[in-house]
């Protein structure tokens, strides 16, 4: 089912009189096409969980409208929206068995939707099979591992065949290995059912790896939406550039003077004739820095980290905005032991220039 969020606002009144209201979600305008897996991504406190609660109906927006398909659901209570929600802590009922947990939503159905016990058990088994938990139907949640509890929670959310599946930080309570496994699992389940799925995460790797589309949020505002790789390759502003990618992007304070880009005293790019002289921020991905004896970017080496496949050079530069800057290079290009300085060549497609307001300054030769 297509989900449309039309200029959503969510304000929470302040506790003290005179203080401004807290705006958790501001002018949220988004269309999620049918059948996609979408990641709401942002640091904690950016309003992503609030947005999820608005979509499922646990919160009512201060203004704006929400559509599922063509139906306006803004004022519908959660139970009439046809959504399934998986909570961050799973919220499985500890006193009920796995089977009863999965059947719980079905037992609430009324009128002509009411099911017999047999139908419910069949539906529950079907949902359990989908998440591969059917062997544990008679256990209680406390007797399951974190990953298994997660599956039960997904089965419970799916058993009514919702039009939209919502997941709130679904992987945050799992250990690293399970997290990897479970995110593939979520992808598989989503593909199999074709249900429009929206999940909230603060982990960019999680969002990038399995989603069809990511929505990057900051302070209740959408900073950029798009396919994960496109957003990574072409960030619209400094926030998005910094938020996506591990290790984090390197940021330098630079200047444009008569068409040349200076980082400190180094001219790292030129021919930027369309841009007037000004102060800028330059962001360079760690993988865009290639050691080159003739390169224009002169840096001091503070450490070399060798980790098998990739090696990183931790370096310093007078214009760098953080003390630890990082370049990821192939081991064959690593400078020798004892070297104090290194010169880099920069791959232009992975270098982005931002104005002082943090918005991207695009140059003519690059899209």
């Amino acid at each position: 089912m297509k989900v449309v969020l039309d200029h959503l606002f969510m304000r929470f009144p302040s506790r003290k009189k005179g203080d401004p209201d807290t705006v958790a979600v501001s002018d949220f305008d988004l269309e999620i096409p049918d059948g996609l897996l979408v990641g709401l991504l942002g640091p904690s406190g950016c309003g992503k969980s609030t947005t999820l609660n608005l979509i499922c109906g646990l919160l009512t927006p201060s203004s704006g409208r929400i559509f599922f398909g063509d139906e306006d659901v803004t004022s519908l209570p959660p139970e009439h929206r046809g959504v399934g929600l998986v909570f961050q802590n799973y919220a499985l009922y500890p006193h009920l068995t796995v089977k009863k947990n999965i059947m719980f939503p079905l037992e609430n159905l009324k009128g002509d939707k009411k099911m017999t016990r047999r139908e419910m058990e069949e539906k529950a088994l079907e949902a359990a099979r989908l998440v591969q938990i059917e062997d544990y139907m008679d256990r209680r949640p406390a007797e399951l591992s974190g990953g298994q509890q997660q599956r039960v929670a997904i089965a419970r959310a799916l058993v009514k065949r919702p039009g939209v599946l919502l997941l709130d930080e679904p992987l945050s309570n799992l250990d690293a290995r399970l997290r990897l496994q479970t995110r593939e699992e979520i992808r598989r389940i989503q593909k199999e059912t074709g249900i429009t799925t929206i999940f909230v995460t603060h982990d960019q790797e999680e969002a990038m790896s399995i989603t069809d589309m990511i929505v990057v949020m900051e302070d209740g505002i959408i900073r950029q939406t798009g396919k994960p790789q496109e957003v990574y390759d072409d960030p619209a502003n400094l926030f998005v550039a910094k938020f996506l990618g591990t290790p984090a992007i390197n940021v330098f304070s630079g200047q444009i003077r008569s068409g040349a880009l200076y980082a400190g005293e180094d001219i790292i790019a030129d021919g930027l004739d369309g841009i007037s002289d000004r102060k800028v921020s330059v962001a360079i991905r760690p993988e865009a820095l290639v050691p080159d004896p003739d390169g224009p970017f002169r840096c001091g080496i503070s450490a070399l980290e060798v980790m098998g496949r990739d090696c990183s050079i931790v370096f310093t530069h007078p214009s760098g905005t953080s003390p630890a800057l990082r370049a990821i290079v192939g081991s064959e290009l690593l400078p020798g032991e004892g070297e104090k300085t290194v010169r880099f060549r920069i791959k232009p497609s992975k270098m982005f220039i931002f104005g002082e307001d943090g918005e991207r300054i695009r140059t003519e030769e690059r899209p």
Partner: protein
Amino acid sequence: MNENNRKAWLYLMPAVLFLGVFMVYPLVDVVVYSFEEGYNFASQTFFGTGTYNYSYVLHDPYFMQALKNTFILVIITVPLSTGFALLISLALSSIKKLKELFSTIYFLPYVTNTLAVGLVFMILFKKTAYSDGLVNLLLGAFGMSPVDFIEGPYWAKMFVLCFYTVWVVLPFKILILTSALASVNEDYYNAARIDGTSRSRMFWRITLPMISPMIFYLVITGFIGAFKAYSDAVAIFGTNLNAAGMNTIVGYVYDMLYGNSGGYPSYASAAALILFAIVLTITVINLMISRGKVSA
């Protein structure tokens, strides 16, 4: 015994000594007294041993009256007070405004002296030559004839005692249940709301099972507390409970030790052990019933 063991016992010594002298020894003594016929504190003598004390107590009409009173008190007040406490806690946890004020008001009886409260109850319910008392005035307003609740018919006196007991034990139960209700994670209710669960179903299927360990705790301690009732009855009916027909088992034990008919430690010990056996049985039954039903 190695060095460590000796040290461990040394450290345990104060606790072991105190528990031994003031708990284990008296407990054993009570059992011994209960089988010694006509034991006398002053002369430390007795006529013989046997089960005569138990037989005497069980055939004593005052004891049977006390047993009956105690059982009625337990059966009426434990379910009533727990039920009322649950209703009030649910109401308290669903309001936002003035929550603290109401919580404080409901907690006041807990910090009030038993005898003072008993006095107030007596004044409210008593009928004298000069005044009918507030409760009787209210009854009169509804066209009912006045009843002497303190020195009148048995059911009226029992009503006052039960009313008083429920009122006195409510605050503690409300305190426990409101905190139990507050500790239920909000996400369970949110999950239930998304699934379209009705409010009554939420209560029966989620809230109640979640707080069942606390309810169970309150029922068990409620039973034990009500079986040990004594001071409440004294506060309302005075010290001569046998005359009022409102004695309780603990009251009977006290009377046998120190009352007008006092000086019978053997009978008192036997009665105390009978009470112990009853409380133990009831608690075991409680545990058996709750096993499997209470999740914790």
